[in-house]
């Protein structure tokens, strides 16, 4: 060992983790350790069962002191998992935390080369050598501490967004709740009852909606969309588009000097409006006017003019009279707010089930989606809660429920995943049917019944006892009798191994759920990744299910993946807690990977300026009066786009410097043969 080296020379320690058998099972640890000792400037190399454990970290801390290390390499799992752990240990050991480098020999080695011990061990040696090459050149860096704005934003006001906003606001944080539609409540407000307790959905949701309105820390921004997002954790500048709704709130009216004016929700305007449109809240099964509210419990209670269909006849304006609440010339407004953190809770959409043509949705009157069923059975729905079938208004006696309609479907038309709540709500629907229509018979066509929650399996038994018939098999086709409009459902009962053909009055398709079309644009605005199926991607599926890889942005509800109301609310509470931490702490540390200009090398050509996506670069004067590039650290995010381009090599990307990267490349390609 080269202990006689002067302290300013690089002195690197290498620690190899077995990770139980996760690494040691596929990589020869002993060989790797012996090899590490032969690498230039490595003064100590050791191995341990679990380096991330407390004894493992202590071992590192002591080694840093004992061997006066200037650099540390831990060959273990992904830096995306444990870099913070070992940085902390480095700091504890008295070395600058940025002198630590990780060699990923688990996720990108032992786990993907499980049956190639020789190949994996060789790859690990290269990875360690490359990491040492970088560690030799690492420098002291100091994270930059920035203050965090004492405000948060929640995007989407379904039950998830509502819960998150209430929690944030109740912990003393000013919270902007942004909702694209004119009312809050999301899908839950469209539901009749909720499984397994069967409490009325509106009854448990409406108080929460009202709390939102009353909460002094919540600024509810309905009929509003996110236009752009700038900045970073602690300091997001979010520009919002308040869509013109053509109607003044009482506050807006007061601001215009209209005494006692503004919309009080009286609804006088609606009957006079000549334009009739389908009401999307009722899934088109009821009409609405061009000036409308979706349903009587909307929050805020404020009418909205749909300017796409408004003919500007002015009849509403007339009838509104002295309240002067209507402004037919209203324009969209842009406002920018500053927030420290944000939660995305933009929910879901229902799969366009007509794509599964064999079931005849949208072709046969009496095939409806389960969301339509919710409205048809709901007392405040388009039929006033009278369960009737669409073709003739008759009360259906025999109803089929087709589960996994588009879910767990590998044909390429539907979705491969389980939509998680369809089993349960279909059981609920079967029960609601008995409640409403004595003597009715329900047939549940299922693949598996997944009743995984608390009191869910018990609910399943209850529905069985109530007499629902369960037929295990995927429905192959549904045909309509053109005269009676009755439906013939064909399937195979896979338990009995028999073909089944049943005549039914009505069929309800438990359609898969999918991300909304806008999920993609929202995620791009906030820089969040998506999973294979388009759901927003959490930072870690198990250890960080509310976080994202964009610091300061969190997820809640179905937009992260299908989940029912209890799970949505639980995740929302988790996201709110996570989002409130940086705000309560008041400051966050940013990784100091800023660009720096080596002024002697800079020709002042300015070619880097336009490359920077954050406008962090400017030309300025050096001490000797030359034009050189200057970095505004507060704006630089450390992507290195400038550094990857500069023709003169004048940009020093801290922690990813050109010498460091070239050293890694050379260590791989030349190092092994030296």
């Amino acid at each position, binding site marked *: 060992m080269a202990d006689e080296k002067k302290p300013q020379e690089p002195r690197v320690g290498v620690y190899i983790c077995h990770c139980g058998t996760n690494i040691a099972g596929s990589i020869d640890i002993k060989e790797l350790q012996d090899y590490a000792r032969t690498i230039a400037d490595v003064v100590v190399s050791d191995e341990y069962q679990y380096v991330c454990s407390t004894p493992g970290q202590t071992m590192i801390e002591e080694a840093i002191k004992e061997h006066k290390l200037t650099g540390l390499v831990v060959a273990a799992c*992904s*830096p*995306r*998992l444990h870099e913070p752990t070992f940085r902390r240990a480095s700091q504890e050991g008295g070395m600058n935390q940025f002198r630590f480098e990780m060699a*990923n020999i*688990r*996720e*990108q*080695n032992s*786990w*993907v*080369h*499980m*049956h*190639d011990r*020789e*190949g*994996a061990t*060789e*790859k690990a040696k*290269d*990875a360690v050598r*490359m990491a040492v090459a970088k560690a030799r050149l690492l420098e002291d860096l100091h994270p930059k501490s920035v203050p965090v704005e004492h405000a948060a934003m929640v995007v989407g006001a379904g039950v998830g967004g509502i819960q998150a906003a209430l929690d944030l606001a109740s912990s003393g944080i000013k919270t902007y709740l942004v909702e694209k539609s004119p009312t809050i409540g999301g899908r839950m407000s469209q539901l009749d009852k909720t499984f397994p307790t069967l409490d009325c959905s509106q009854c448990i949701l409406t108080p929460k909606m009202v709390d939102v309105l009353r909460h002094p820390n919540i600024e509810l921004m309905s009929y509003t969309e996110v236009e752009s997002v700038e900045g970073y954790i602690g300091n997001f500048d979010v520009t919002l588009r308040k869509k013109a709704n053509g109607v003044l709130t009482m506050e807006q009216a007061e601001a215009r000097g209209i005494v006692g004016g503004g919309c009080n929700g009286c609804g006088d305007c609606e009957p006079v409006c000549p334009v009739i449109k389908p009401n999307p809240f009722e899934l088109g099964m009821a009409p609405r006017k061009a000036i409308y509210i979706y349903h009587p419990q909307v929050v805020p209670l404020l009418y909205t003019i749909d300017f796409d269909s408004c003919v500007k006849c002015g009849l509403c304006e007339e009838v509104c009279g002295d309240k002067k609440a209507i402004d037919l010339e209203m324009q969209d407004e842009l406002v920018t707010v500053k927030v420290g953190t944000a939660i995305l809770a933009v929910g879901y959409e229902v799969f366009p089930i007509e794509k599964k043509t064999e079931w005849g949705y949208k072709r046969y009157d009496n095939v409806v989606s389960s969301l339509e069923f919710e409205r048809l059975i709901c007392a405040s729905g388009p039929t006033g809660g009278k369960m009737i079938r669409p073709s003739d208004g008759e009360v259906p006696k025999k109803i089929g429920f087709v589960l996994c309609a588009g879910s767990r479907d590998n044909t390429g038309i539907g979705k491969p995943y389980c939509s998680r709540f369809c089993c349960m709500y279909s059981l609920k629907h079967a029960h609601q049917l008995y409640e409403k229509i004595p003597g009715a018979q329900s047939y549940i066509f299922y693949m598996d019944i997944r009743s995984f929650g608390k009191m869910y399996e018990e609910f399943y038994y209850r529905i069985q006892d109530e007499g629902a018939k369960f037929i295990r098999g995927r429905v192959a086709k549904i045909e309509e009798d053109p005269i009676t409009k009755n439906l013939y459902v064909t399937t195979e009962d896979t338990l009995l191994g028999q073909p089944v053909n049943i005549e039914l009055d009505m069929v309800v398709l438990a359609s898969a759920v999918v991300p909304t079309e806008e999920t993609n644009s929202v995620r*791009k605005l906030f*820089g969040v*990744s*998506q*999973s*294979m199926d388009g759901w927003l*991607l959490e930072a870690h599926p198990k250890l960080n299910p509310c976080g994202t*890889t*964009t610091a300061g942005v969190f997820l809640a509800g179905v937009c992260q993946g299908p989940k029912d109301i209890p799970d949505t609310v639980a995740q929302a509470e988790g996201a709110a807690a996570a989002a409130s931490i940086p705000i309560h702490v008041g400051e966050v540390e940013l990784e100091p*990977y800023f660009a720096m200009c080596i002024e002697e090398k800079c020709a002042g050509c300015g070619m880097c300026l336009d*490359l920077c*996506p*954050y406008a962090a670069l400017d030309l300025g004067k050096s001490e000797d009066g030359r034009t050189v590039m200057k970095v505004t650290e507060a704006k630089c*995010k*450390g*992507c*290195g*786009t400038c*550094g*990857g*381009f500069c023709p003169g*090599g004048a940009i020093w*990307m801290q922690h*990813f410097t*050109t010498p460091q*990267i*070239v050293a*890694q*490349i*050379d260590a*791989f*390609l*030349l190092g092994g043969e030296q």
Partner: protein
Amino acid sequence: MSDEWKPKILGIICNWCSYAGADLAGSARTQYPPGIRTVRVMCTGRVDTLFIMKAFASGADGVLVSGCHFGDCHYLEGNYKAAKRMFLMKSVLKNMGIEDKRFRMTFVSASEGAKWAKVVEDVVNTVTELGPSPLKELEQ
């Protein structure tokens, strides 16, 4: 150890998408050949053409640059800028007598573990088929 020739392939991958995708391939235990060594950068925008030239000059048989899909860059548009640069790089390499198949830029997202495995397998196969880099033969 076998003395059969094995290609040396350098991967330069961005932290947010491709590195995360490669990690996911690991968590999912998706198997692929161990023919690649990776360098992590924050964004493919950081990838200087110098790195690629340097890699070939130092004996790489193939180079892969992989980042986020267009529109998904953690830094808005670093990958567009990288892609432009990498496109130019291909013609430069061609002029140097290096088959353009030895150099690839791909887009692998954080959720595409399986795609990462496929990309590596493809690159390893392509480069193995091409044999050692012509620059190496020049040296000898």
